[in-house]
């Protein structure tokens, strides 16, 4: 099978590309960002997905499957530009796929789209609408991209579409939402709250995404790994020190004195859990994470000295 990984410059996307290549698939990649040391047999096209040159890759390479990992999740990225990339990029990928005979598109989204609120169920299932933007408007473009991708299930019945809502990842790349949060030696928490966090080892996450591509799944699937763990345990097991602070104080400190610059809504994500039920995905693919939650944390502790 010929697989095009869009956003292949990202750490997780590279691992997906390498995993698929190891399984004997032909892999090509698109990203604005370079991948300097990519294997020779993975052709990487340094183009913007929204530009003409990207469509040429679809036209000339005619991939069977496209894995869309080109959404920008970092909240530090400017709001409007980010929205343009996330929505415009997603639209371009689906349009090119339909126009150039792609059979299967995998949209890799995040579990955070479900939103963190005090009165939502602990385990989110795929039937629930993503409502992350209620308290956290900065997530709106990502939620919209997820819903746009889901539209394809009925708008383009000939195309097989998979929407993945993947939990946080943790691994050697030390990138991603959870890894950024764990960057310092001391990790801020909201006093009196200790939400459950769910994460997958990077290798396991890459295997799960590759599985979704290979199994040609149709529909929306939560991708969860081992059971969730309280945030305080994550902080301690990775060798950091939790620093609980009253919410108003923490809100005032964001963006100052070395604290991360985060939108106010992000505080909800360290007050309330976002946990997903990954049963449907497990049953459809037989996916089983190889690294337990505790092992993933200990590995992370060994590979990262807190800066």
């Amino acid at each position, binding site marked *: 099978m010929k697989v095009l990984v869009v956003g292949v410059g990202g750490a997780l996307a590279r691992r997906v590309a390498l995993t698929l290549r190891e399984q004997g698939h032909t892999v090509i990649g698109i990203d604005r960002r370079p991948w300097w040391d990519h294997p020779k047999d993975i052709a990487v096209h340094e183009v913007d997905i929204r530009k003409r040159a990207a469509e040429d890759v679809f036209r000339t390479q005619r991939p069977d499957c496209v894995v869309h990992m080109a959404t920008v999740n970092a909240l530090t990225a400017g709001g409007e530009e980010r929205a343009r990339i996330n929505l415009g990029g997603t639209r371009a990928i689906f349009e090119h796929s339909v126009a150039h005979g792609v059979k299967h598109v995998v949209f890799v989204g995040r579990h955070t789209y479900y939103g963190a609120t*005090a*009165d939502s169920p602990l385990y989110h299932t795929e039937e629930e609408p993503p409502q992350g933007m209620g308290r956290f408007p900065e997530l709106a473009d990502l939620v919209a991209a997820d819903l746009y991708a889901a539209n394809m299930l009925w708008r383009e019945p000939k195309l097989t579409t998979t929407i993945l809502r993947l939990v946080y990842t943790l691994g050697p790349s030390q990138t991603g939402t959870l890894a950024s949060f764990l960057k310092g030696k001391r990790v801020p928490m909201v*006093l*009196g709250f200790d939400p459950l966090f769910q994460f997958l080892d990077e290798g396991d996450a890459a295997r799960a995404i590759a599985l979704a591509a290979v199994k040609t799944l149709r529909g929306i699937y939560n991708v969860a790994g081992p*059971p969730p*763990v*309280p945030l305080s345990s994550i902080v301690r097991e990775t060798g950091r020190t939790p620093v609980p602070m*009253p919410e108003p104080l923490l809100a005032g400190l964001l963006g100052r004195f070395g604290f991360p610059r985060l939108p106010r809504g992000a505080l909800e994500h360290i007050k*309330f859990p976002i946990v997903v039920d990954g049963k449907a995905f497990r049953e459809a693919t037989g996916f089983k994470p190889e690294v337990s939650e505790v092992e993933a944390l200990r590995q992370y502790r060994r590979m990262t000295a807190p800066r």
Partner: protein
Amino acid sequence: MARDDSIKSLVDRLELPWNELGVDPYGISKKHLVVFFTALGFLYRRYFRVKAVGAHHVPKRGRAMLVGNHSGGYAIDGAMVLASMLLELDPPRLAQGMAEKFINQLPVGSLWSSRCGQLTGLPEHAERLLRDERLLMVFPEGARGTAKLFKERYSLVDFGTGFMRLALKTKSPIIPLGFVGGGDAVPTVYNSKTLGKLMGVPYVPFTPYGLAAPLPAKCEVHYGEPMLFEGTGDEEDVVIKGYVEQVKQRIAQLIEDAKSARGGVL
């Protein structure tokens, strides 16, 4: 402390799928349970001197629904039922209640309720716990039940019907329970909804001596035989209400039994 050790060993014997850190998939933590049940155990054994009758009716394993009455003030009854499931059953079981929504919004309240398995009262939670073969604790009177005044302490207010539909849908046995003593421990004469609103809780109970600190009244809880109803949960309201009435009558009887067995209040 010998007592702490025994609570610790009881928590160790809970048959829950702990991970290496002593946390289960719902975020229940052994460490927090030990602290929580050490406090509850003291209240149960020494302060309210709770007597539990018929705890053997609770199945040792598998899904079941404890359904009982609120007896006044705030959920002393719920806390004591939790304690009795740990202290009186062999093997001990963790009953999981359905907490009022405001609790999860409060700092500390949010943390402790989730670490002790007392999830927010949502139908999704109740169904998931039962399908996971857990022991669910339900008070179908809801907050109206804890708002009972002293003179109403042995009465029952209207029961919701959600629990019955859920029991039918998940084919879970109902273990009825009657609890007495909570109304004597917190002899409410007035509930202030205005003050409640200011504090973010449904109401604040007042007693003849002012704030509602509980008095050391003797409490008694009687568990009845499991009741299993046949159905799908999609039945007409009349049918469901008929089943709910049967449970309510059974609970009223258990309250009467507990009342006469308890003797004095002190």
